[in-house]
């Protein structure tokens, strides 16, 4: 299959501007700015069925149409904070096919009427930010960015902005706080960013992978895009496969590909030929899918089908857990992560992750009694639905699902 997003795998030098241009690059942006109205661009993206790739799966075209036309200026923001344990796709795109991502940001900015776009990268992506800065300068030098682009009235500038290590900044309102020079703590919503975002102005925030789809959709049309994937989730997705597989990595596949194909056909199967015990399809934030029946592996991966397994596809960061792993160890890991990353704003999350981590540590090290396991479930359930953003909720997903679906591991770990 030819790639739509990871095109560097066929065209190794696509990270060079001339090579990108020779492969049709930037024609879609030029066509949009010189021949289309912003609303027409939004319509194409809407019709393509593109959904946000950051995890929530919100329809992209619809989000763009929400930018408040009564309040100006508008801002466009690319979320390159990629921090979910198990996710490493945006990085590959920005490192290897940066112009397609940037062109997506440019088309999106034009569509929502933004003259300034910020790319918010996690601080660890220091090298990527430097490289993107150089690419942006090249685009300025060639007249794709700057004032009065292609002789029209449209002007656009793109700036990179580095975070400094905080998972929570992937949450869009925390990201905006951070971009404004504050602690990355989520805002109360509403108002939502398309009405009041950066500096109180309408702001559209999309994930790197979402943007990277846009030039191809504009070039090939909504119908072409919809011919891939499923009705629930059209198009292709980059699945980040990690954990106990022989060939971990990014695999760009149509939505609806089965877990079995991802793990065995592409991922080379499970390490040491063990069997799959659980799947975490959305990174550390996942409810664990219990693979007690081999046919579960034939589930097609889209939002709807994964939900039927009482989990979520999220950003499709698929972590494979084999039968050598005990779940008391696993949730001790995930809870430790969320405890570290809780921003401290909402009490249930700040305190809940703290107490959960005490309990998971005690259980994992064999110092717990049976009542501790019930208490852990109790704390987790108390947190659910009580936090401003999803982090608090996410921290309970692996805990509650593993206690419900892998109880025997915990019974073994506690003293009688």
């Amino acid at each position, binding site marked *: 299959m030819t790639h739509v997003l990871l095109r560097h795998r066929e065209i190794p030098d696509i990270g060079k501007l001339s090579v990108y241009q020779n492969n049709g690059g930037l024609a879609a942006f030029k066509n949009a700015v010189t021949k289309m109205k912003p609303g027409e661009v939004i319509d194409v993206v809407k019709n393509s069925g593109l959904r946000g790739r950051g995890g929530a799966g919100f329809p992209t075209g619809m989000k763009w149409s929400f930018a408040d036309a009564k309040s100006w200026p508008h801002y466009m923001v690319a979320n390159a904070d990629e*921090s979910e344990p198990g996710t490493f796709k945006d990085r590959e795109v920005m490192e290897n096919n940066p112009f397609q991502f940037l062109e997506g940001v440019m088309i999106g900015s034009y569509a929502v009427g933004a003259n300034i776009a910020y790319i918010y990268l996690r601080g660890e992506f220091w090298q990527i930010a430097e490289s993107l800065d150089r690419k942006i300068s090249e685009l300025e030098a060639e007249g794709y960015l700057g004032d009065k682009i292609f002789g029209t009235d449209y002007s656009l500038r793109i700036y990179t902005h580095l975070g400094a290590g905080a998972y929570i900044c992937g949450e869009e309102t925390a990201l905006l706080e951070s971009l404004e020079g504050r602690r990355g703590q989520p805002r109360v919503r509403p108002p939502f960013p398309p009405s009041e975002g950066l500096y109180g102005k309408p702001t559209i925030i999309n994930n790197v992978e979402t943007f990277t789809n846009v030039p191809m959709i504009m070039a090939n049309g909504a119908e072409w895009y919809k011919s891939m994937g499923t009705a629930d989730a059209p198009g292709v997705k980059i699945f980040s496969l990690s954990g106990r597989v022989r060939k971990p990595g990014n695999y760009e596949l149509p939505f609806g590909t089965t877990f079995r194909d991802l793990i065995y056909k592409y991922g080379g199967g499970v390490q040491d030929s063990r069997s799959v015990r659980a799947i975490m399809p959305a990174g550390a934030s996942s409810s664990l899918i219990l693979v007690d029946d081999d046919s579960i592996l034939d589930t097609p991966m889209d939002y709807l089908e994964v939900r039927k397994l009482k989990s979520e596809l999220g950003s499709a960061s698929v972590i494979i857990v084999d039968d050598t792993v005990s779940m008391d160890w696993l949730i001790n890991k995930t809870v430790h992560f969320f405890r570290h990353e809780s921003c401290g704003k909402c009490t249930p999350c700040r305190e809940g992750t703290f107490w959960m981590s005490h309990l998971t540590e005690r259980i994992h090290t064999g110092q717990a009694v049976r009542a501790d396991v019930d208490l852990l479930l109790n704390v987790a359930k108390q947190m659910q639905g009580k936090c401003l953003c999803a982090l608090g909720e996410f921290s309970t997903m692996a805990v509650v699902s593993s206690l419900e679906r892998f109880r025997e591991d915990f019974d073994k770990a506690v003293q009688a």
Partner: protein
Amino acid sequence: MSLAEKYPQEVQQILSKYPPHGKRSALMPLLFIAQRDEGYISKAAMQDIAALLDITETEVAGVVGFYTLYHEEKEGKYRIQVCTDLPCALRGAEGFMGDLCDHLKIKAGETTEDGLVTVEAVMCLAACDRAPMFQLQGPDAIEYHEHMTVEKTMELIGELKQSEE
């Protein structure tokens, strides 16, 4: 000397990215410059940046304390920050971290005697398919080192040592 006097062009270039009413956005990039100079962010640097952006020193300190890549104390010149989160742990990161510390005769979070290297466990770095891995946070750059072994890491530390001499 203040940052604005020391690096007028760089500070100006950072400020120019944001609208006048959004000047505070320059805080995080300025903190990285301050840290580059001293290896950590001193009280004096916080005061300097606060004055430059018309905010209080407390607001600056609140941001420094929130983000993990800012440091308030001088430790090793280089920080080896090993990801030991779930996906990396499933691929041997914890064993790697332990062996590396044993080799350096330090515990996690400690600095080697010569003050060159601090080894720390950190949260996910978006390199889950290339574990064991770490990022090397130096004074003016962050580099990823992936598919690592203790041998390769000791070689890297050797190179860092040489560049110091």
